[in-house]
C-alpha cells in the first residue's frame, strides 16, 4: 500500500498530500508501463539472438547452402560472386558483427531471400503470418469465452454434476495434445460425416484475391482449428478460474455485498468474479505464446495456410532465412500480444493501475 490517508491531518496538509499522491500514482503507473515495455524489448532482442543462432546452426554458411542449392538445379556461381555475397552478408567478419548486420537488415524490413522459393522471404510468407495470428487470436477469444463461464459455474456450484463434468472434460482437454485432437476430429469428420475438415478457405477462395466473400469464408473456417487450439488452454484456465473464485467466494466482502440486499447473481458477478478475473487475466497472458506454438503443429495436421507448414518445410530444407524469419516474427508478435494483455490487465485492475504493483 505504501501510503494511506489518516484522519488526523489538517486540511491544507491533506490537500498537498493528495496532490502528491496523484503525482505518485501517475509515476508508478508510468513505471509499470515502462517496466513492461523494456521487458518486451529485451525479450525481442533475446528472440532475435536465438533466431540468429538457429540460422547459423546448420554446418556451412548460407552462401555454401545457396551454391549447393543452385548447383542442384543446374546453375552455378563463380568464386567471385560467392566472395561478393560473403562480403555483403559479412560472413568473413566476427559473429557479433554478423548479428548486427543481420539485425540491421531486419529492422529495415529486409528479411533476406528464401533459397527454396528463390523469392524474398516476406513475399513467401505473405498472408500466412496474419492468418496465423487470426487463428491464434480466435483461439484466445474462445479460451476466454469457454473458460470464464464454465469456471464461474464450477466454483459457484462446487461439487454439482455440472462441476464434475466440467472438471473431467477439463482434465481430458489437458491430457489430449492438440495435434492428436486435430487428428481425431479429422478422422471422425472424414469417416462419419464425409467432411474434409481442415484448411482455412474453401477451394474457390484459396487462391482468390481478398474480398468480403473471402473474409466470410475465412470466418466460417476459423472456429474449428481455433476450438482445437483453445481446448487445452481452456481446461487450464477453467481450473485457474475455479480455484481463484472458490477462494474469493469465502471472503468477507461477499457477505458485505449480500448483506446490502443485492440479488445473489449480481453479488457473485460484481464482486468475487471481478476479483478472480485478475489472476485469470494475468495467467491468460501466458496462454497466448502457447496458442501460437500450438497453431504451428495443428496447422500441419489440419492443413491450414499459416506459417506452420512453411516453417516445417523451410527447416527440413534448411532454408534458414525463411525459417529464421518465421521464428522471429512469431516471437515478436507473441511478445506484442502478451504486452497488450498485460496493459489490459493494468487497465482493469485498480490496484495495479494506482500503485504499480498487485
Amino acid at each position: 500500500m505504501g501510503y494511506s490517508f489518516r484522519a488526523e491531518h489538517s486540511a491544507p496538509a491533506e490537500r498537498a498530500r493528495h496532490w502528491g499522491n496523484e503525482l505518485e500514482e501517475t509515476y508508478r503507473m508510468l513505471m509499470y508501463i515502462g517496466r513492461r515495455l523494456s521487458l518486451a524489448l529485451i525479450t525481442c532482442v533475446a528472440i532475435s539472438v536465438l533466431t540468429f543462432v538457429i540460422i547459423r546452426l546448420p554446418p556451412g554458411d548460407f552462401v555454401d547452402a545457396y551454391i549447393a542449392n543452385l548447383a542442384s538445379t543446374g546453375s552455378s556461381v563463380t568464386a567471385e560472386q560467392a566472395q561478393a555475397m560473403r562480403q555483403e552478408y559479412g560472413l568473413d567478419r566476427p559473429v557479433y558483427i554478423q548479428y548486427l548486420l543481420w539485425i540491421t537488415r531486419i529492422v529495415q524490413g529486409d528479411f533476406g531471400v528464401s533459397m527454396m522459393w528463390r523469392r524474398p522471404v516476406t513475399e513467401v510468407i505473405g498472408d500466412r503470418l496474419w492468418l496465423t495470428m487470426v487463428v491464434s487470436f480466435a483461439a484466445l477469444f474462445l479460451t476466454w469465452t469457454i473458460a470464464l463461464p464454465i469456471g464461474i459455474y464450477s466454483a459457484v456450484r462446487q461439487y454439482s454434476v455440472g462441476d464434475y463434468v466440467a472438471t473431467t472434460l477439463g482434465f481430458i482437454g489437458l491430457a489430449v495434445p492438440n495435434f492428436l485432437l486435430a487428428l481425431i476430429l479429422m478422422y471422425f469428420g472424414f469417416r462419419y460425416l464425409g467432411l474434409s475438415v481442415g484448411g482455412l478457405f474453401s477451394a474457390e477462395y484459396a487462391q482468390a484475391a481478398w474480398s468480403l466473400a473471402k473474409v466470410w469464408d475465412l470466418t466460417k473456417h476459423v472456429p474449428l482449428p481455433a476450438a482445437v487450439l483453445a481446448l487445452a488452454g481452456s481446461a487450464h484456465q477453467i481450473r485457474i478460474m475455479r480455484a481463484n473464485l472458490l477462494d474469493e467466494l469465502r471472503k468477507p466482502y461477499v457477505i458485505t455485498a449480500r448483506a446490502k440486499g443485492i440479488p445473489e447473481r449480481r453479488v457473485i458477478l460484481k464482486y468475487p468474479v471481478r476479483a478472480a478475473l485478475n489472476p485469470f487475466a494475468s495467467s491468460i497472458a501466458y496462454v497466448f505464446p502457447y496458442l501460437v506454438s500450438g497453431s504451428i503443429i495443428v496447422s500441419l495436421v489440419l492443413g491450414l495456410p499459416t506459417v506452420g507448414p512453411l516453417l516445417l518445410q523451410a527447416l527440413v530444407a534448411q532454408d534458414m532465412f525463411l525459417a529464421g524469419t518465421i521464428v522471429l516474427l512469431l516471437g515478436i508478435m507473441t511478445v506484442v500480444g502478451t504486452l497488450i494483455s498485460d496493459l489490459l490487465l493494468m487497465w482493469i485492475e485498480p490496484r495495479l493501475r494506482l500503485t504499480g504493483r498487485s
Partner: protein
Amino acid sequence: MSGSLTDDSLASAGQLRLTWLRFKRHKLAFVSLFIVILFYLVAIFADFLAINDPHAVDARRGYLPPQAVHFFDSDGFNPHVSGMKGQRDMKTFKQVYVPDPNKKLSVTLFARGYEYELFGLISTDRHLIGLAKPELLDGIYLLGTDALGRDLFSRVMVATRISLSIGLASVSLSLVLGILLGGISGLYGGLVDLFIQRVIEIIRSIPTIPLWMGLAAALPNTWSVIQVYFAITLIISLIGWTELARVVRGRFLALREEDFVIAAELVGASQFRIMLRHMLPSFTSHVIAAVSLALPAMIISETSLSFLGLGLRPPAISWGILLQDAQNVQVLAGAPWLLLAAVPVIVVILAFNFLGDGLRDAADPYG
C-alpha cells in the same frame, strides 16, 4: 536410505510421511500412481511384452487390422489366433493377406520369439505370449500392423520405453537447472533474483514449438539415434525448467522465513549446510509434485517433435514416431487402428496430471 536416523532425517521423514498419508486419501491420484507404475513396468519389460520384432518389415502383411485372441474353441480352452492366407485382391490384383478362420494357431505363455537383452544384460528370446509354433508370416497382431507390416502392439510397447525415459531424462535435467537457478534466486534474492526472474519471464513469453523446431532441425543428419536422443532431451529441458525453478524459488522464499531455518542461521550453520540439511528435505514433496506435473509436458513435447519429424528419427521408436504414420486422413480411413498409438499418450498424461494434482494437494494442503 541407509545410516543412522538422526533427528532431522526423522523430521523430514515425518513431513514425507504426512504427505503420503494425505495423498492416499486422494483416490484418483492414488489410482493414477498405479497406472504410472504400470507404464514404467511396461517400459522396463518392453521387449518381453512385445510379441513380434518391432522392426521386422514385411510389406505383404501391411495394414492388417487388429486380431482377436480366441480363448475357447470346440475342444474347450485353447487360446489361439487365426492364421493368414494369401489372396488376390480382385480390384487391385495385388497379393494380400487376410485372416483365415480355418487356420488355428495356438498361443502360449513364455513363447520363443526374437532375441533381445533383458535390462540390457541378459540375452533371451522369451516373450510373455507368442505362437506355440512360429511361422514365417503368421503372428499375433493385437493392434494390427502398419504400412510396412510391423506389429503395432510390439511397437507401442517398445515406444513406451523411449517416450517415458526421454520424459524422465528431460525432467531430471530440468530439475537440476530448476533447483540450481530457483535455489540461487530464492536464496540470494536481490539483483540475482531479479535477473533470473526476468530470464524466466522471457522464456515463458516465447512460443516454444517454433523454437524447438528450429533447434531440432539443426541437428545434423549424420547423428546416431543416441546422439539425437540426448540432443532432444537437452532441447526439451532447456525450455521446461522455468516452472520448476518458479516452484523451488517460491519454496525457498517461504522457507527462509521459517523458524527452524532462522534458528539454524543463528546457531551459525553455513548457508550450504542449511540448504542441504534443512531446506531441501522439507520441500521434497513439493518438488515431487512439480515434477509429476512437468513430466506430461515433456512427454507431449517429445511426441510433438517426433510427430513433426524433427524429433527422434527412425529406426528409433517413440509414440510420436508411431503417430507420424497416422498423419494422413486417407491412411487413417483405411487403417484407423494406427490412432491407437494415441491411447497410451493420453492415459499416461492424464495419470501424471491426476498424480501431480494429488501430490500437490498433499504436499501443501493450504496452498
